[in-house]
């Protein structure tokens, strides 16, 4: 009984979270979302890692 109630509550929570995310517009502007890890200092197109002390 404990496990089934728990599974039901968890399932409902996940569906609610998905609905919340949709309402919040998390699945819109995907292009913008994918680019949010870049900024002016580390823009898209810039390689940001290489072996230390070696020419690139």
């Amino acid at each position, binding site marked *: 009984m404990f496990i089934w109630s728990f599974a039901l509550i968890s399932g409902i929570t996940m569906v609610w979270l998905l609905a919340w995310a949709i309402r919040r517009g998390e699945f819109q502007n995907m*292009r913008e979302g994918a680019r949010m*890890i870049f900024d002016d*200092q580390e823009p898209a197109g810039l390689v940001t890692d290489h072996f230390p002390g070696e020419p690139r």
Partner: protein
Amino acid sequence: MIAQPLPPAIGPEFEARVEVDGSSRAVVVLFWGTSLLWLTVASLAGIISSIKLHSPDFLGGIEWLTFGRIRAVHWDTAIYGFGGLAASGTLLWLQARLCQVRLPYRNLLLVGGVVFNIGILLGVIGILMGQSTGVETLEFPLWAMPLLVVPYVFIVIANFTMYFKKVTKHTYVSQWYLMAVTVWFPILVLSAEACTNLGAVDGVAQAIANWWYGHNVVGLFATPTGIAAAYYLIPKVIGKPIHSYHLSLLGFWSNAIFYNWAGTHHLTGGPLPAWTITLGVVGSLMMFIPVITIGINHHMTMLGSFHLLKTSPTLRFAVMGSMVYTLSSFQGSLEALRSHQEVTHFTHYTIGHVHFGMYGFFAPLMFAMMYYGMPRLMDQEWSSARLIRIHFWCTLVGMLIYVFAMCYAGIRQGLMMNDPAVPFLNIVRFTIPYLGLRTLGGVILLSGTIAFLINFIRIITPHKYTWATPTLLDSERDWRKVVAKEKEQ
């Protein structure tokens, strides 16, 4: 190697990022640093266990190093000590960066990190003293578990605080995974402890709960953190957005829906209702959806940038981890099939698969995270490119030797066990050379870890081992070139 001061900060975004990194420095370095110490302990314990399988007299007279104890120490220090701390450090740093907010509750998290380490240490001492619970993956004595659970509550609170204070509008795909981990992991631990060691259920229901946990601690804790790291590192290092952001979200939600059901495939052939096993098999096969989406996404993002593997240590580990994620997940899904398990169940094949996932996928992605994060957190570069290369090749070669030896030996072992004409002792004798290869693989993996540990100790030792041209400052120099070029145009 000459120590050089940082150049003047460039622009408000750079300053904001430096501030965020600065706020998380002490906590993340504590979590990552101690995770490497536990990885060393886990590797040593694993090697001792491995040697005992082909040379049973090895350390045979020492009671607290008997196989049943040292093997439990190996797995629990690997999953909680290395996995728990490396993943938590990754979670806190990535979330702070992606939310663009300072890490909250710094002192609480520092205390939490210390308490978590003490909890693991006490758990290890408990197991070595013979107080293991005997429940797979939950071997730590019950009295040690609160020291692991309470600090994790701090991490959950810090994670949600950062998320609800975030400056950014969007939730990046890595954040979905990180948020999910902080919800799933405490639920997993508490429910599994309740159903096994606290005795809320009896009999086969305990076995179901045990393997539901044993499988999910890898799939709903280690895996999402590894994928979150890959989705951040690969695009960030090569400077190219994810190939398909839609696919990445499909991967997350399908992973969230299907993974939870897969655990019971570990009990194929056991005295359980057939539908519970079938449920596990179906859940495992449905995992092809997230695995394929993630595999396609990582590969297509990397397309045209594979040459950077020569020059970027972070990318080497991240791509290795991502490729092995696809391969080991395919292997795992197929392994769930009853027809497959007729041969491989109760053989070394399963051990090969677990290590393929943990040391081929999860660990390299945590290493990649550290290789990328530490120079930015410490404002100085890794001291030795040679040590990084040693670490990478030891990880790759050691893992391949280990996985090949175990999977090949496991299949042959299973086929022979299915043949009643083959005496059991002959099967044991057949596996001995492969168990020796496993020890060799483990020693190579440990050598890589030691190389990394040396580099890690050096980078947290200020102004002693610093290259004249730190990587992160090179990025800033490149940025200046980009801006200058744009102005010219």
